[in-house]
């Protein structure tokens, strides 16, 4: 059973062909290529860019594959961008008389550690339940992944996403955009020292929600008052404040739920320091943590959407009224 999947939730035009958990082809037309020549994740919106690239990306993904179903991301994301993928999916479904499968982008990130290459690696069995975290520039969500396609949201950010907070700190340090890689590198140069102990937001609250805007404010004020602090220690301390909050909240979630198996997906998990902190935490609770096995899977991509769709297809969960399928920009799990 082969599925063509499409994701245009934000700045990437992506398509893939998957069979079960195996990715047969995966194409991401990064709009970085259009907008900036220097790399990095640049969420320059570009509806027209999606429209211009989508046929090319789908053709490249399809090649000679004969497919059985078509899957598409319905949300969350940028409305005008989501529309392009959905419109194309509908068009193809009608043209080739295939059933449509709708996928939530966050489900994709939750399944991302289980996505395999064309040879079926990595071999990972499902051992439900998992505590799943999606940490990216646009999301910070805590989910109990109870069984296939069965989720319960137990916490989320109330304002900024974790990746966004780091990007904005970089901006305040005049380090441009995107901030993640630069901050990670500067922090690594000073061995992730935490010289300034910026406030850890929401740690005292008893729930599993995050809030990073207060941290942003105190960082802003600190920089206003102190002009000559070393940039590497500033970057490192800020990163530690964000990561420490994530880890402490995760620890709280482990204690509350009694689940010590973790899944972490989303762009921020490209950060090796954060991966190490998660490993330390799960070791402490005799658990395990799974990250996406391949780098492209932490960013936005269609392969993870296709893998979710294959579990939906197995259970015959299809879009009933294809004409009425519409984007849901704030789609919740």
């Amino acid at each position, binding site marked *: 059973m082969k599925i063509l999947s499409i994701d245009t939730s934000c700045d990437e035009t992506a398509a893939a062909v998957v069979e079960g958990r195996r990715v047969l082809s995966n194409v991401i037309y990064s709009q970085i290529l259009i907008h900036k020549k220097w790399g990095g994740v640049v969420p320059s919106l570009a509806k027209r860019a999606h429209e211009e690239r989508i046929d090319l990306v789908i053709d490249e993904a399809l090649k000679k594959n004969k497919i059985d179903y078509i899957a598409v991301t319905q949300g969350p994301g940028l409305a005008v961008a989501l529309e392009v993928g959905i419109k194309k999916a509908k068009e193809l479904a009608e043209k080739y008389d295939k059933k449509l499968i709708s996928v939530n982008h966050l489900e994709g990130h939750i399944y991302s550690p289980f996505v395999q290459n064309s040879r079926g690696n990595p071999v990972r069995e499902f051992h439900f339940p998992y505590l799943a975290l999606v940490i990216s520039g646009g999301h910070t969500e805590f989910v109990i992944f109870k069984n296939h396609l069965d989720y319960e949201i137990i916490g989320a950010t109330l304002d900024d996403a974790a990746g966004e907070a780091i990007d904005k700190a970089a901006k305040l340090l005049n*380090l441009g955009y995107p901030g993640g890689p630069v901050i990670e590198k500067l922090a690594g140069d000073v061995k992730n020292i935490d010289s300034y102990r910026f406030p850890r937001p929401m740690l005292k609250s008893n729930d599993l929600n995050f809030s990073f*805007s207060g941290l942003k404010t105190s960082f802003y004020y600190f920089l206003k008052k102190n002009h000559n602090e070393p940039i590497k220690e500033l970057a490192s301390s800020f990163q530690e404040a964000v990561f420490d909050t994530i880890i402490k909240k995760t620890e709280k979630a482990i204690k509350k739920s009694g689940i010590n198996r973790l899944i972490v997906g989303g762009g921020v998990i490209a950060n090796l320091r954060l991966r190490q902190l998660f490993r330390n935490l799960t070791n402490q609770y005799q658990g395990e943590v799974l990250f996406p096995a391949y780098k492209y899977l932490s960013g936005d991509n269609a392969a993870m959407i296709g893998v979710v769709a294959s579990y939906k297809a197995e259970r015959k969960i299809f879009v009933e009224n294809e004409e009425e399928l519409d984007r849901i920009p704030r789609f919740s799990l």
Partner: protein
Amino acid sequence: MSIKRITENNYSQVLHYTVEVLKKGGLVIFPSDTVYGLLVDATNEKAVKKLIEFKDRSPGKAISVFVSDFKMLKNLVVINNIQEKRLKEILPGSFTVVLKSRGKVSFLLESEKKTLGVRLIKYKFVNSLLKSFGKPTTATSANLTNRPSHYSIESLQKELPKKKLDMIDLIVDAGKLPRNKPSTVVDMTEADVKIIRKGDVDFSNSQVFNSGSPQETKKMARKIFSDFKKTKKPLAFIIEGELGVGKTVFVKGAAESLGINNIVSPTFVIYYEYGNFYHFDLYQIEDKNEFKYLEIDRLLKPGNILFFEWGEKAGEIYNLLKSKAIVIYVKMEYINEKKRKITIKL
């Protein structure tokens, strides 16, 4: 093509020879802090063209340059005092810094936006070479486009077809390089969007509020918003204020009065929609053309409510908003860590 081995003992001679090759517009394979690089005189267009041909690189894709020091860096790109202060803390180092080009190098190396990537690294052979050459060189890796980089001359010779090898004038061999990661890009260029300036908004008849907490800001937003809810025209709130001042808090307050309780920052996706309530964040807008893709005029219908964080970046669409909607300008300022001054202008 000649191959010269470079060591601590003979480097001044080898560098002298390398400078001569560069001066003649030659293509040089040279070691660096990361991988083997391809060096040509960055100011010599013919040499740059040769390099682009060698790499099979599509034209229009930018190529970074090595500089020997801050003096050379400042001669190539536009840099302000704050940026210079920050850069002095991280350079020399394994970064590629992107800034507005002064047009001193071949335009083929610049991006479409006329920016240039500069590298000031911690690597003696490159720095000494640049010092004696006195001009920037290209700093691209010595692999063909979409092929892996090289850490040794052997792997490079094995990989490159003869036709490519024949294009090279000199190979400087420093042995096997340590497997350092590629440089990190620091893009310091400013956005190219029209900002709403003070003079564009008449603040003479504005209302000023002071808020002592996020709760108070929310309450204020609810109150201000309720005055406008009944109008027939679309509403556009333009919110201006620095990072962390509480713009999202203000939007949350207004949204709550409509029963929308799940507002989060839309920075990453530019905007989220909640029925007829649209929450924009223009923070990431880098280029004025991006407004076209947002199709904002399509949203300016009676009953629709649009909130714009980083609204000062809406200069491009300010007149459109004013002609079709009731525009409420909200300026938020820090008084101290807790207190905010909120100025509202209809």
